[in-house]
Every structure is written in structure tokens, then in C-alpha cells.
């Protein structure tokens, strides 16, 4: 198939994908990409491309090929690869703590299967909280981010405070870059809580599913109050006390809002949020049980995503800076060699090695999704317990070794030759949830279909190279305004 004729250039490893218009997309080990015609591709791989031709020079400048200094090209590729895999050097930086399983809301898609506020046994005890913080500070990572999760963490506020204060006291000697985030529906916060959050620079992550009628379809309090009204009432207070930028919101796309994402985006804009994460429903907790009622096909999601992106780009071009965060993250992966640190898009997966979650009872899981599985009775991914097991047992045990071994996209069936592998990642817990096998089955994987659909869309945009669209994309990646981009 490939001519035996000796080539006068050396081709570096790359993956490729045929596009509908007689062109191919090539991506190398450093994540650099190039579009090439089918004819040039055949010449290229058969060693017949003229070394003075423009396409050869383009391929050479992106390290797909060299006809001169092989060692220099290898050095550059290795440096870019090392940078891209930088997350491996830091080890576990994100530590999520479930301070309670209790929640004053009963969202019908709750991935975490929260329990009623009256149920007292879902609270983390002080002794467990201290052991969790001790365990967290054993991590060699120079950055530690502690994220409070639930249930509704404010229902165990006493423990949240203790953890923050204890972590701060330990850090006086450890000197790590320490950050906190609290995931809350906001409804139980008051001024004294907010002052504490402000004092320790604790970022707030809340939930917003769109305008009132959409939000209230799934996010109602247990006593029947409108989740939207409670949220809106507190949002102003939050911003007055902790500031505008310390509070972001997370969207869950359900059957109710999948075809109304423009309305959802308008709501985010009206409420002063700087962007949105178009987050699809995941197969955990009550979302899994209510899939028929809440779910939609990946094709529907991708169609809605494309429409939402067109609208977001239009808003940006009209002068309203508004970011789709997942897209922005993927663009950074496509255009830069930097490590972006999103657990689902890492190879090996970030589960356990980049992030871990500590349940209220001290059980440790490699990801939030693994904890969600445990909540519905499947503890396959328990790495150990802070009361019984050592740091080495938990973070260097057989489970984590297996997760790392079986989540390298470079070796996974279907991923190994995928052109998008440098921008994507593996989610072994999701694979297990879908197929009962952590390796998973790519041809039927919704995770694969969704990510591939989004990345393909981005490459369509990149290939089209519309100045306006690319300006918007680069303004997101560089965190600069559109005007600055165009200067």
C-alpha cells in the first residue's frame, strides 16, 4: 500500500481522519494539526512530496516531518508532549469533600442521589473531616483545591468551617497554593456565611437551568418552593457580599431545556454570568433512573450545542462577551500545548491522580461519578477509607494502578488510532457505568460520540477560518476582549 521507494524525509508519528471534501486532518504527538488534500497525503506518505513544496514546509514547521535535523525535531516534540502531560507531575490537586448527603432540594435529575435534611446520618463527623484534611495534605501537589459538595454543603456548615480553618492552619507549614470552592444551591446562605466565604476567598459554584419555568421543572425545594425564586433572591446578596466574579453557575441540560438553550443563555446573560458550560446529563443517580423522562439522544444534544454555539458567537460579535467554557477548554487543547487539567479529558484519566472525592463517611473515590455510583450501591471504585487506610494504600493501591493502566487513550481500542486522541481523554468510571467494563466500548460510547461531535464541529469552524468566529475563539483562549484581539 505504501511504496517501498526510499524517502528523503522522515515522517513523525501522527493520526489522521478523512474529511468529507477530499481532505484529511492530521494530528501529531504534540497535538499540532494540519489539513491536507487527499492527493498530497498520498504523496506525503509515499515519500513523494517535494521538500521545497509549500505543503511540505507546512508539515515540517508543525513537526510532522523533517528532512534536516532529526534530533532537534524530536526535542521539540518531546518538550511539547511533556508540557501537554504536565498534569502528571502534580498528582492529586482537586479534592472534593462530601460534607453531607442531605439536601433541602429534591432535583429529579440529582446525580448524587441526595437524602432528606431530616436524615442525620449523612453528615460528615468532625473526626472524619480532620482525617480527610490530613490525607489531602499528604498529596505532593503544590496546588490544593478543596471543593465542598453534597447534598447541600451548607446543611453541615459547621464542618465546612472546620475544614477551611484546619486546612489553613496546616498550610501555614505546608505553603501550598490553597483554594476552596463550595457547590451550593445558595438558598440557605446568609450574610454571616457569605462573610466567611469572602474572608477565605471561597468561590461559589451554583446551579441554574434557565428561566424560571425551566429551572423549576427540575429544581424544586423539598417543601415545594420555587427553586428559581429562592436562587434569585440569594444571588443578589451573594454578589453584594462576595463579589460578582466569585459566583459561577452550572447548567444541566435535560429534555426540558435541550431545545431552548438560547433562552437559557439569555437568562445567564441577564443575570450577569460571564459564561456557561453546556453540560449534558450524565448516567448517574436519579438522572439514570429517570432517563426516559429527562434524557435525550446525543445527536439531539449535539444539534442543540451547535445552535447554542452559533448564538453565543453572535452575542460575542454584538459586543457581549460570553464564553462557552467547555469549548474554550477544548480550543486551548487544540491550539496550545498546555496542560488544561480537566479530569474527563486527560490521558491517563485524571480519576484519582488529578482529583479524588471523600465521602461523608471517609470513603475515598477517584471521581465524583464513582461516588455517585457508590450511592446507588456499587462501591467498585472505593479506594479505601481515611479511618482505616494509609495514604499509600489509597493513592497507590491496585485500583488506581488499574485506572491509570486502562485509561490511556494511546492504547484504548478505538482511541489508539483516533485523530482526536490528543484533545480527548478517557473516563473509566463512565465506561463502567455504561458497559460494566472500565475500558468501555467506543462504538457505543455516548461519551465518545459527544466529544467527537463537539471536536468535529470545532475543526469545521477552524477549517472554515471565518475571521469573526476565530476572533471570538481566540478572545476566549487568551482571556482578552474581542477589541483587544482585533488591535
Amino acid at each position, binding site marked *: *500500500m505504501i511504496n517501498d521507494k526510499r524517502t528523503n524525509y522522515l515522517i513523525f*508519528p501522527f493520526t489522521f481522519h478523512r474529511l468529507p471534501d477530499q481532505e484529511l486532518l492530521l494530528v501529531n504527538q504534540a497535538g499540532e494539526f494540519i489539513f491536507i488534500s487527499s492527493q498530497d497525503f498520498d504523496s506525503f506518505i509515499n515519500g513523494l512530496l517535494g521538500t521545497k513544496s509549500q505543503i511540505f514546509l507546512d508539515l515540517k514547521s508543525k513537526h510532522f516531518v523533517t528532512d534536516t535535523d532529526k534530533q532537534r525535531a*524530536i526535542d521539540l*516534540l518531546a518538550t511539547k*508532549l511533556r508540557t501537554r502531560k504536565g498534569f502528571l507531575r502534580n498528582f492529586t490537586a482537586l479534592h472534593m469533600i462530601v460534607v453531607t448527603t442531605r439536601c433541602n432540594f429534591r432535583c429529579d435529575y440529582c446525580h448524587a442521589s441526595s437524602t432528606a435534611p431530616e436524615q442525620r446520618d449523612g453528615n460528615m463527623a468532625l473526626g472524619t473531616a480532620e482525617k480527610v484534611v490530613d490525607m489531602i495534605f499528604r498529596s505532593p501537589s503544590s496546588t490544593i483545591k478543596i471543593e465542598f459538595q453534597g447534598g447541600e454543603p451548607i446543611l453541615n456548615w459547621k464542618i465546612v468551617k472546620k475544614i477551611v480553618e484546619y486546612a489553613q492552619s496546616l498550610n501555614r507549614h505546608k505553603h501550598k497554593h490553597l483554594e476552596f470552592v463550595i457547590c451550593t444551591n445558595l438558598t440557605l446562605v446568609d450574610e454571616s456565611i457569605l462573610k466567611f466565604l469572602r474572608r477565605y476567598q471561597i468561590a461559589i459554584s451554583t446551579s441554574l437551568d434557565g428561566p424560571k419555568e425551566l429551572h423549576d421543572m427540575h429544581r424544586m425545594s423539598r417543601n415545594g418552593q420555587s427553586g428559581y425564586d429562592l436562587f434569585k433572591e440569594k444571588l443578589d446578596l451573594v454578589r453584594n457580599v462576595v463579589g460578582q466574579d466569585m459566583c459561577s453557575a452550572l447548567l444541566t441540560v435535560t429534555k426540558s431545556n435541550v431545545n431552548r438553550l438560547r433562552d437559557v443563555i439569555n437568562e445567564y446573560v441577564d443575570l450577569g454570568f460571564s459564561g456557561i458550560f453546556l453540560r449534558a446529563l450524565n448516567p448517574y443517580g436519579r438522572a439514570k433512573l429517570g432517563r426516559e423522562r429527562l434524557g435525550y439522544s446525543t445527536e439531539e444534544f449535539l444539534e442543540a450545542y451547535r445552535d447554542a454555539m452559533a448564538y453565543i458567537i453572535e452575542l460575542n460579535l454584538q459586543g457581549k462577551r460570553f464564553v462557552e467554557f467547555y469549548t474554550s477548554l477544548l480550543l486551548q487543547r487544540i491550539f496550545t500545548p498546555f496542560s488544561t487539567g480537566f479530569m474527563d479529558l486527560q490521558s491517563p484519566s485524571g480519576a484519582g491522580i488529578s482529583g479524588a472525592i471523600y465521602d461523608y463517611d471517609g470513603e475515598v473515590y477517584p471521581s465524583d461519578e464513582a461516588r455517585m455510583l457508590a450511592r446507588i450501591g456499587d462501591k467498585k471504585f472505593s479506594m479505601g477509607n481515611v479511618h482505616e487506610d494509609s495514604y499509600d494504600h489509597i493513592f497507590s493501591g491496585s485500583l488506581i494502578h488499574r485506572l491509570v493502566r486502562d485509561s490511556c487513550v494511546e492504547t484504548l481500542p*478505538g482511541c489508539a488510532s483516533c485523530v482526536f486522541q490528543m484533545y480527548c481523554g478517557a473516563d473509566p468510571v463512565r465506561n463502567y457505568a455504561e458497559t460494566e467494563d472500565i475500558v468501555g*466500548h467506543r*462504538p457505543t460510547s455516548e461519551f465518545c460520540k459527544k466529544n467527537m461531535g463537539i471536536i468535529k464541529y470545532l475543526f469545521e469552524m477552524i477549517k472554515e477560518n471565518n475571521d469573526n468566529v476565530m476572533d471570538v475563539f481566540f478572545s476566549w483562549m487568551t482571556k482578552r476582549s474581542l477589541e483587544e484581539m482585533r488591535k
Partner: protein
Amino acid sequence: MTNFERKGFFITDSGEKLLVKLSKQFYEKPAVMAAAYKFTHKCTVLIEPLDEGYVGVWFQAKNNESPDMLPGLINDFCNELIDQQVRLDLDKRYGGLRDTIFEHAFLPTESFSKKQK
């Protein structure tokens, strides 16, 4: 007999299953496996040796799929197979560089310096 069959593209077995006969002279096992894997969401795929120098790939539509889609799917399979074989050929020629780049990227500096010496 369809046009495809007249060209000897594949053989049907009572309309339910299709067999693609591949020459080992052009296609190797890893390429056949990788290409077949991509179609396991729609078909049950069986790979077996045929006469000397040939391998057969049987495709049978899964329960929720119509057997009518099989000819189109086999077109896609054949193109995918070529791409997989190209990848394999390239890998044989240049795949060693991948290991060199990975080793270079992750070897501790002092070990690499020693190795250079």
C-alpha cells in the same frame, strides 16, 4: 445478485449475513481487527481464516438494525480497512519514533544525560 456481489465484493448468506473476503497480501490482522471493531455497534462481526492467503469477515446486523444497511456498512468497512492498514504501515516505518519521543519527554533529566553519554 446485486452489483456489489457481481463485483465479488462480498457474498451473502441467505440475506442475513455478509462475508467480505480479504487477501492477506494486503491486509494484516491488527488492521482487520481495528476496522471491524468500529462496526461492532451495528453488527455482530466474526473473523475467520478462509482458503490459504485469505481471511473472511462476516457481518450480521444486530437485532435492532435492518440487514438492508449491510452493503453501505461494508463500503465504509472497506475504506476504514485501508486507513487502518495505512496507519499500520506508517507505524512500522516510523512508530519507533513515538517511543523515542515519549522516552525523551518523560525520562528524568539525569537519566537522559547519562543515556546521551
